[in-house]
């Protein structure tokens, strides 16, 4: 009974802190703009199954992708064991999902085997991070804290897996010593059980309880650290793929505000029938966090800083300042900075700083070729180029700021309908003396 009460308190604290964090994030979302509507559930489900569950984009790097997929699929299986532990903890029963019979055996066996596979993968990740110089883990946005963040998450997952395997091994050893029934199948636990040989049943029970509590408390702590770390992607990435932008990568989002203005300009007649302009016109493009869409912010929370986007960026790989990963890390950091002020003081709150310039420089934004390599690569379907173009929209339409070459190009299109200075009268010069062979 004492165990149940302690467990219930731990669970309540976990859920309480988690709810606080989530509500705080939701309050930040209130200050973002509407994005695309969420429809087409069938297609969204397919994208999620493909990209998240199937790990198809992770596998674009086949070797490391394989180890990540093991970790992900392991989590998917092990979570059923964690649910069982919560039920056990609250009810005081043991291995409560045993009512599932053969299915319980399959779940437990795969969880046990995956614990080892995940542990091995995590060790490989740690060796790569700590001892090998992997270029995509570096960059101006990768501060000391980013690396600590990554190592903390990996260490915690490793401990989670060790405690799980220890728990299973001690469970088998204990039941064997007691002559009790083992519910579920534990292939790795069976191999590890002899570690505890020579211990009395009380000792075995202690170790079982020890690993049980260690494992579940680590889960509770981990769940509450995640939202404050880049590893929030554990929660966010699957929904983020479900909420993917479904349009072709080449497509930019239309600005309907501009359409209204341009239609007025092209056809002044409609100006009289249009409603009076007493609605303040929203800012064009993105300058700060309140100009981004909810999806941009969702993307930023899903980013785990893997750097696959930056590693394929033509600007970044040729030494320019732009790093697509940094754009989303900056958005997340800026919301963390400004969000509380917005919540407290309302949408007009200003701290005289902005995402543009205080975080992201114009030089970064102008270096993008909109080639979409970053968006193609992102394992959780973050779309970087649309946000970069939205920031360019602010620069051009609100500040008339653009590199000289682009200003000339704008002027040419306005004056002579081509990005270069050629007269429309010359548009058919290419047809002069055009002859072809007559093929029999």
């Amino acid at each position: 009974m004492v165990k149940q009460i302690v467990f219930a308190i731990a669970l309540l604290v976990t859920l309480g802190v988690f709810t606080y964090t989530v509500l705080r994030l939701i309050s930040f979302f209130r200050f973002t703009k509407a994005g695309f509507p969420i429809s087409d559930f069938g297609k969204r489900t397919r994208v999620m199954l493909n990209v998240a569950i199937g790990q198809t984009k992770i596998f674009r790097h086949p070797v490391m992708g394989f180890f990540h997929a093991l970790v992900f699929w392991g989590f998917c299986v092990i979570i059923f064991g964690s649910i069982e532990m919560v039920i056990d903890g609250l009810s005081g029963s043991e291995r409560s999902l045993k009512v599932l019979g053969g299915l319980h055996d399959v779940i437990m066996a795969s969880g046990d085997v995956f614990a080892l596979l995940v542990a091995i993968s995590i060790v490989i990740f740690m060796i790569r991070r700590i001892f090998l110089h992997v270029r995509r883990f570096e960059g101006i946005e990768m501060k000391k804290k980013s690396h600590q963040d990554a190592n903390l998450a990996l260490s915690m997952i490793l401990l989670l897996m060790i405690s799980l395997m220890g728990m299973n091994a001690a469970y088998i050893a204990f039941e064997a010593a007691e002559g009790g029934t083992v519910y579920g199948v534990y292939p790795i636990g069976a191999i590890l059980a002899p570690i505890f040989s020579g211990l009395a049943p009380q000792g075995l029970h202690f170790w079982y309880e020890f690993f049980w509590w260690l494992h579940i408390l680590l889960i509770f702590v981990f769940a509450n650290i995640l939202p404050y770390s880049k590893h929030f992607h554990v929660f966010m990435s699957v929904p983020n793929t479900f909420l993917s932008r479904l349009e072709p990568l080449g497509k930019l989002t239309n600005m309907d505000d501009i359409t209204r203005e341009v239609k007025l300009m092209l056809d002044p007649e409609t100006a009289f029938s249009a409603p009076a302009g007493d609605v303040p016109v929203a800012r064009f493009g993105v300058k700060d966090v309140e100009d981004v869409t909810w999806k941009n912010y969702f993307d930023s929370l899903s980013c785990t800083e893997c750097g696959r986007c930056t590693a394929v960026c033509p600007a970044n790989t040729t030494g320019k300042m732009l790093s697509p990963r940094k754009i989303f890390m900056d958005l997340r950091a800026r919301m963390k900075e400004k969000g509380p002020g917005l919540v407290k003081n309302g949408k007009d709150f200003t701290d005289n700083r902005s995402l543009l310039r205080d975080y992201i420089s114009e030089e970064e934004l102008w270096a993008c070729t909109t080639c979409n390599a970053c968006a193609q690569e992102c394992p959780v379907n973050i779309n970087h180029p649309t946000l970069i173009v939205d920031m360019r929209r602010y620069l051009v339409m609100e500040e008339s700021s653009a590199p000289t070459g682009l200003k000339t190009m704008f002027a040419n299109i306005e004056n002579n309908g081509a990005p270069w200075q050629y007269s429309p009268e010359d548009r058919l010069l290419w047809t002069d003396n055009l002859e072809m062979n007559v093929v029999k």
Partner: protein
Amino acid sequence: METKKIEVPVMADLFARGEKPEYLFWVGCAGAFDDRYKKVTRAFTKILTHLGISYAVLGKEETCTGDPARRAGNEMLYQMQALQIIEILKNYEVKKIITICPHCFNIFKNEYPDLGGHYEVINYVQFLDQHIENGNIKLDATMLGNTRITYHDPCYLGRGNDIYAEPRSILKKLTNNYVELERNRSFSYCCGAGGAQMFKEAETGKKEVFIERTEEVLRSEAGIVATACPFCMTMLTDGLKYKNKEDVKNLDIAELIVQVMEL
């Protein structure tokens, strides 16, 4: 060999005569003004004529789609161009558009519908592949002497619109020695000119993007690098010049077909 003069049909003239072509051939600014790329427009026009396709160009009525302005952030200018063009196309009752430039293709296909411009948009690579598949265009893989050919994916055909198979299918019928670049298909590496980079100086860095890609082309040891975009062509041709490797030819897919068909 016997030759004939091609009279390129212009939409306004056809309409004055009460005729309506099946396709609008969108030439694009590079296709009309860039000296090197005009040759590609001419090559594709020969193929259109050879196939007896019912088409017309807008000629002097054509104007920029607004793509470079849009990607540089000037949504206002883009929409002014787009709404004007949609009006012109409405007057000519245009239903089908063929483009060469992938940027024009992308904007007509994906972005004009948001402003009320709905068309069946076909990129010339898809169009050519179709006519090769149904036998209207016959290619002989030995005509180019089995030159090693490689292909640079334009971002707005490839990643932008998932067109990877058609150009490869064509090139493999033009040579028995087709090779891929190290980074190809969805992994392809930009030429450096997209997103309006074509019209500005590159930001400071340690290398130019087009040099990086040109070096990859050279590593493939191909005799011809085929492209399907005016900007990619400018960048790679410049890259080859810069590297003093002008023996490696940068040709458009349409030009290669015209060579083989001896049009």
